[in-house]
């Protein structure tokens, strides 16, 4: 059996009956891009390798799973794209507008020949340990994102610090390891299986050897990678892997909030990795519900129907992504919210970037915060 047929089988592409709901639901196709998930599925089924590569649409796909969730035949389209990217992978083929800087960074981490300086952001008010603890806190690459996207005013490290101080409030001093490496999410979804493999082995070994029983993760993409993509790499029973919002919900009795917080309206952006990939919709919302004075106003498209930030794997950025981002920010503004809450640093990067447009400044400018930051602000 040739590889394409096999990919078709693994992702149920063969079950496609050509209804076109995927393309109708696709945020990129809606924004007007010459891109069609349906055509991609058909090309796979018809064994047209050339058609798959030539229309350039493999890189455009956000893998946001909006099509998966609407497919009546349960074709796993995002998985199909991931496998096709792996199948057609060439290292020099970088669609990323950052010229592949982030891919290079991730691959250097995968090679692991240096000792990273990734702990400079730790402030005195948070407690961490490097020895033993019940909880391992996974920081993700927020320090790299803040360093690289400094000019956009991205402060994703605030969310990381806030998550650690939430853990501290629960009386936990989490392990934060200086030898943590990128989770490899973007390499995997960009088709670079070899580097992903190296990262996965290193990270899984790191967490297993720490003997922590709970792994707490803030970043939606890291969480997806840990919960789903790392599963085959564990040699023993994996620790309990929780999103910070799931952790707070499980133990909310330990937090004491201010009696009456400032009344304000916020809205919540479901990251595609947390929402459709992992089906965690309620946990962040119930955390917002715990906070005094905060009222959640849902956007028109939320939960399962939420639109992604249009840049999930550093493979695409074009006018269509911009159109999606602007549309999403306008939706957020229309709720009357003063703050847009999210759980993914990449949502922050991409939405902040879209806000740089001087012509649309007032229409789309909104404060973006990580969920953990909001929780820490409300703490007594």
């Amino acid at each position, binding site marked *: 059996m040739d590889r394409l047929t096999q990919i078709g089988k693994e992702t149920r592409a063969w079950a496609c009956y050509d209804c076109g709901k995927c393309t109708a639901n696709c945020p990129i196709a809606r924004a007007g891009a010459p891109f069609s998930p349906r055509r991609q599925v058909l090309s796979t089924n018809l064994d047209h390798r050339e058609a798959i590569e030539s229309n350039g649409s493999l890189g455009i796909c956000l893998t946001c799973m909006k099509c998966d969730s609407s497919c009546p035949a349960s074709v796993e389209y995002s998985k199909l794209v991931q496998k096709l990217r792996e199948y057609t992978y060439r290292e020099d083929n970088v669609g990323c507008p950052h*010229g592949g*800087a982030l891919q290079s960074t991730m691959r*250097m981490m995968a090679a692991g*020949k*240096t000792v990273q300086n*990734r702990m400079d952001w730790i402030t005195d008010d948070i407690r961490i340990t490097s020895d033993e603890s019940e909880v391992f806190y996974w920081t993700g690459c927020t320090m790299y994102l803040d360093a*690289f996207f400094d000019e956009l005013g991205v402060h994703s490290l605030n969310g990381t610090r806030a998550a650690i101080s939430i853990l501290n409030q629960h009386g936990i001093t989490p392990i934060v390891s200086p030898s943590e490496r990128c989770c490899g999410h973007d390499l995997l979804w960009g088709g670079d299986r070899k580097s992903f493999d190296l990262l996965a082995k290193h990270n899984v070994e790191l967490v297993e050897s720490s003997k922590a029983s709970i792994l707490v993760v803030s970043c939606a993409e890291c969480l997806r990678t840990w919960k789903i993509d790392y599963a085959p790499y564990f040699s023993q029973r994996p620790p309990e892997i929780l999103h910070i919002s799931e952790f707070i919900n499980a133990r909310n009795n330990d937090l004491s909030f201010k009696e009456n917080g400032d009344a304000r309206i916020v809205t919540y952006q479901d990251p595609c990795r947390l929402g459709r990939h992992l089906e965690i919709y309620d946990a962040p919302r119930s955390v917002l519900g715990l906070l005094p004075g905060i009222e959640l106003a849902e956007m028109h498209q939320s939960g399962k129907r939420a639109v992604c930030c249009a840049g999930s794997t550093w493979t695409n950025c074009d006018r269509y992504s911009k159109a999606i981002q602007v549309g999403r920010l306008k939706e957020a503004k229309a709720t009357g919210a003063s703050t847009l809450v999210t759980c993914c640093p990449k949502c922050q990067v991409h939405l902040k970037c879209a806000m740089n447009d001087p012509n649309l400044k007032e229409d789309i400018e909104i404060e973006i915060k990580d969920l953990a930051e909001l929780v820490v602000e409300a703490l007594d």
Partner: protein
Amino acid sequence: MTSEQVKTKDAVTPRKSKRRWTPNIIVFACNWCSYAGADTAGVTRIEHQPHFRIIRVMCSGRIQPAFVLKAFERGADGVLVSGCHFGDCHYIFGNERAVEQFERTQRMVKLLGIEDGRLRLEWISAAEGARFAEVINEFTDQIRDLGPGPFSSRRAGSNNGKP
């Protein structure tokens, strides 16, 4: 540089001895100043160490973090970014952009744990052939002291493939 010039340059470059390690340096030079500066150094026959490759770009403002990071990823031992002096940029403010990009690159390089000394920014004008030679000599010596880069295939214990 014409192909004949490249050939003659290669011919005079001493063959790498098998025992002694020589650094592999990437120099990004802007078309209008630094590249011309290197040319001046050549035309005036100033001697300098030859262990670098020049990549010419139209303006130093083009030198994104990706260029430098990729160079390190592929095994460069040092990277020199060079452009016109402030106020002399052919595109008015290109070198100001270069500084911004360079600072971003520096932050990433620091996080990754690559030594500071492997990355350098210099302004060299078209007339400063001697300055070009001086910078190259200084930087090459510095890299020689630091030894092979972290991702270099010639580093001990490396499994990058080529010897």
